[in-house]
């Protein structure tokens, strides 16, 4: 039985028995329909978490709320900063659990289409992913319950929670649903490249050359349109022995060592430093790495090989990558913090 049906029968039973007072009338919540770029596939929402106004507002407030961290100084936005396409410009991010402090903060753009999350793809939904950063290493579980207590002291948030999910108090279920709902709204599909695809902009000859090269030399095999990722896992040969096991951590298969999920290249010009460990500081460095054919590490994917690109070709590739920056996304007023 779908959960919604279950809830409605639950409410029905409540009504019939009539042993609780009738729910206080609150402002009606309204469904929200995201504007999906026409060259993107449709977005699928979990049946228990279709977007509504209250859910989005609740999620957006939680995303910027420091009550979610133990010492009340950190929010999701401390590491996922809108102006950097929800990354943070740091090499790696210090310390929350599930984010072991060894990985670079990834962008949150277009995650609604991602079949799984994290570098090793172990987390199947945004709802579940929201639990990861909420857990400090030493007090997992407890920490979420502290956050729940803190949030419930805010009458406005409680009302919002009630309107969004029909539950009187804020709990792990509503927190994770709301964060996921907000994150699904983080759609980036209005870059110069997108406008070019829709016939609304023209690429310079350098950008056009870069776009052609991107396919010719095989980047597009893994960084596939429209999200510039195929969600596959590859060892691109960064290290001969990877200190971060990558996919192997999940599969326990030795040959998966050093494989990471192909990252999206949308907004790539503003999301440096690059790679899972932030080890490359510029796009020039990344392109030089690919041009050299990686390091030739033992487990390196066979598609990463010397490209023999000229300096001009390298510049063209970078110019093309820069067309993937979506300025409207970086400044979208729907994603900014809300005042009290």
């Amino acid at each position, binding site marked *: 039985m779908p959960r919604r049906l279950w809830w409605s029968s639950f409410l029905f039973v409540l009504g019939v*028995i009539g042993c609780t007072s009738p729910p206080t009338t609150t402002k009606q919540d309204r469904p929200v329909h995201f504007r999906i770029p026409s060259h993107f596939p449709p977005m699928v929402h979990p049946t228990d978490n279709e977007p509504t106004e209250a859910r989005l507002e609740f999620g957006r407030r939680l995303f910027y709320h420091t009550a979610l961290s133990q010492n009340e100084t950190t929010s999701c936005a401390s590491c996922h900063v809108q102006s950097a396409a929800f990354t943070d410009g740091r090499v790696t991010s210090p310390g929350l659990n599930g984010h072991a402090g060894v990985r670079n903060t990834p962008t949150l753009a277009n995650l609604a289409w991602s079949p799984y999350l994290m570098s*090793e793809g*172990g987390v199947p939904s945004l709802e579940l992913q929201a639990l*990861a950063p909420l857990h400090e290493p030493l007090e997992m*579980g407890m920490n*979420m319950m502290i956050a729940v207590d803190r949030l419930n002291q805010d009458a406005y948030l409680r009302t919002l929670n009630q309107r969004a999910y029909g539950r009187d108090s804020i709990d792990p*279920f509503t927190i994770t649903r709301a964060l996921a709902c907000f994150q699904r709204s983080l759609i980036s599909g209005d870059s110069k490249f997108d406008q070019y695809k829709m016939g609304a902009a023209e690429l310079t000859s350098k950008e056009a050359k870069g776009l052609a090269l991107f396919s010719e030399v095989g980047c597009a095999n893994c960084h596939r349109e429209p999200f510039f990722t195929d969600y596959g896992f590859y060892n691109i040969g960064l290290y001969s022995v990877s200190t971060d096991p990558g996919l*192997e951590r999940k599969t326990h298969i030795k040959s998966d060592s050093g494989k990471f999920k192909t990252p999206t290249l949308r907004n790539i010009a503003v999301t440096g430093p690059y790679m899972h460990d932030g080890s490359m500081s510029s796009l020039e460095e990344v392109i030089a790495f690919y041009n050299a054919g990686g390091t030739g590490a033992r487990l390196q994917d066979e598609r990463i090989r010397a490209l023999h690109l000229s300096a001009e070709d390298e510049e063209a590739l970078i110019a093309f990558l820069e067309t993937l920056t979506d300025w409207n996304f970086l400044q979208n007023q729907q994603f900014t913090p809300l005042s009290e």
Partner: protein
Amino acid sequence: MKSARYFIMACAALTLLLSACKNTATQEDPETEVAANGQFNLRMDAKWGNEDFVIEQVYLDTYGNRIRVDQFLSYVSQIFLVHENGTEVLLKDFYLANFENDVELPFEVPAGRYTGLKLGLGIPAAYNKHEDPAQYPSSHPLSVAGSQGMFWYWNTGYIFTKFEGKIDTTGTPDAALLDSFLFHIGDDPYYRELTFENLNVTVPANGAVDMQLRIFVDQILAPVAGSSLDLATNAVTHTSEQDVLATTFFDNYAAAIVVE
């Protein structure tokens, strides 16, 4: 499977609601006794040899290491009592045992003679990785609060057993225990079903009987039947990066559980 579970949840919710409304309900049906029940108490005691095992107490293991266990938690699932006629009575679907305390779980079961006990170590695959802890009420052992940190948030799925503490590897008497050992075991292949047969427990009608499940912690480390596990040389696994060590630990753990 899923729909059955929702149905059970709905029934549970309904029962809860009905009992919550008891004071306002007009009349109640007299309860009809079908068969006499008795109380079956399942105790889970961690032992170190013949003594009660105590968290944070220093022990000498068979390798001569001075060790101290700071945390020992374990999921036990699908606990069934097997009647002599073969009927299986579900006692509990999920339980998170924290061996900091002795565990005593009381159950009401039909009176009679029982000859077997079945239980799973860990969480069965059907519930392990496909569950969202946030969907359970906080009182449930699989919920965010109830799981007490026994969940792999980077990867989903429950940590079946946590066994952590400190060890002195210098061999100096009275030296502080400075090195750590840590076993976080959990993934579908590690789930173990244990069956204890040829038991003889009679649950008296309207009476009570105890059963002891003993976990010999000293034997996890130096088992009679399993493989050796010297905490001084082999001491840290989160399952994936040291799966051989994880398997050894979990096999030994399963072998160190005895019904008395």
